[in-house]
């Protein structure tokens, strides 16, 4: 239950971090941000990185900023930064609602938004937010910088498009349009546990019907994603129970559920039906 030996490197700048990653990435080097997923895995000896590049001292990565209609979240911004709204209106409220479902308070003071994205646990709330809103991930390496769309970033269970020499420096979240509504519902057996299934929905209401619906599911498949079938069941429809049931049914039918010790495929499909409907019910203004 003690981590295996490693060499710790402490860069002061992003350039320093990417230089170290270029050198040590191929030698089983890993980035250490909040450490709230990596360190437990190391304690179990399921991970034994030879090098840890500790980016907590890189000041330029600790910022949340708004640029036009995008919220830029730096690599060392903690979950706890979202306890209070960091953006206006529904965007801030959505983030401060979702963050309450991430582990527990003392984990949220250390764990980072971008760390969750790079870790890509299918049950990660931030990965669901990134997928549903269509986030862009900014990856820097000694070779340069590239921007990766959420749909291309998450490749599977704890698997992303990041190369071993790339540092996720920033996630750019599109800000919800004004007058947007959102609903979030997560099912797990104990407070703070990993989601067995969760849904995030956003939309606007125009002329009494749903416009620009987004329905994202997490914890249900190998990676979080939007469910076009459920969105189609919402678009142009009035906000009523019948609409929500149709969308929930479409989501349940559309997914390819993962199976694990918590839930088999059939049960997860039932949960998806329930969490989608409940997220929609919670979204009603």
């Amino acid at each position, binding site marked *: *239950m003690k981590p295996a030996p490693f060499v710790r490197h402490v860069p002061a700048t992003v350039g320093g971090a990417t230089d170290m990653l270029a050198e040590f990435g191929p030698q089983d080097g890993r980035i250490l941000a909040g*450490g709230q997923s990596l*360190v437990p895995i190391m304690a179990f000896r399921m991970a034994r990185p030879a090098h840890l590049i500790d980016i907590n001292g890189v000041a330029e990565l600790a910022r949340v900023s708004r640029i036009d209609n995008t919220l830029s979240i730096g690599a060392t911004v903690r979950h706890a930064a979202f306890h209070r709204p960091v953006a206006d209106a529904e965007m801030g409220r959505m983030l401060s609602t979702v963050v309450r479902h991430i582990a527990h*308070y003392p984990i949220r*003071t*250390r764990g980072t938004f971008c760390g969750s994205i790079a870790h890509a646990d299918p049950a990660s709330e931030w990965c669901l937010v990134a997928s549903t809103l269509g986030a862009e991930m900014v990856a820097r390496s000694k070779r340069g910088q590239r921007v990766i769309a959420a749909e291309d970033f998450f490749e599977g269970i704890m698997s992303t498009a990041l190369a071993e020499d790339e540092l996720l420096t920033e996630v750019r979240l599109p800000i919800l349009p004004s007058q947007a509504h959102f609903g979030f519902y997560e099912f797990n057996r104990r407070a703070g546990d990993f989601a067995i299934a969760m849904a995030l929905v956003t939309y606007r209401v125009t002329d009494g019907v749903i416009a620009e619906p987004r329905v994202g599911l997490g914890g249900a498949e190998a990676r979080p994603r939007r469910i076009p079938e459920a969105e189609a069941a919402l678009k142009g429809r009035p906000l009523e129970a019948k609409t929500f049931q149709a969308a929930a049914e479409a989501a349940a039918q559309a997914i390819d559920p993962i199976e694990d010790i918590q839930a088999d495929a059939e049960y997860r499909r039932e949960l998806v039906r329930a969490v989608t409907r409940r997220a929609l019910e919670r979204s009603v203004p």
Partner: protein
Amino acid sequence: MTGKVAITLNINGRDHAISVEPRRTLADAIRENCGQTGTHIGCEHGVCGACTVIVGDDPVRSCLMFAAQADGVPIRTVEGLAKGDTLHPLQRAFMDHHGLQCGFCTPGFLMLATAVLEREPNITDDDLLDVLASNLCRCTGYQNIIKAVRAAAAEMRA
């Protein structure tokens, strides 16, 4: 170098100059290198919260931080709560409301509650329950811990 590094842990206002491997967790360093055994280690993977200490202003799981990451940052542990013979309001409330039985989880709960009440003296009851759900207690059933923290919060506000 996987060899030892020299760091200084500032615990409850006192500097401890120690030499640790990078893999040494803050929890182990506080207990083994600095001799402050009030901080307990339960699960060693971030689930139980027994090792909760305050680093800077934040309550953290000290088993999920490496000691080297806390070099030079003020750390508070349960040993620093009482002022001489005068217990901290939270410590007294835990006694008055029977918020502990075996006591193993108590240092973690005290440091968690201290950090949160200092930051949010007017915390809502919903938020307080969310916070106290962070740590495991297998004796009390939580009700008396909740009562104790509510009472201490009221006293600390007065």
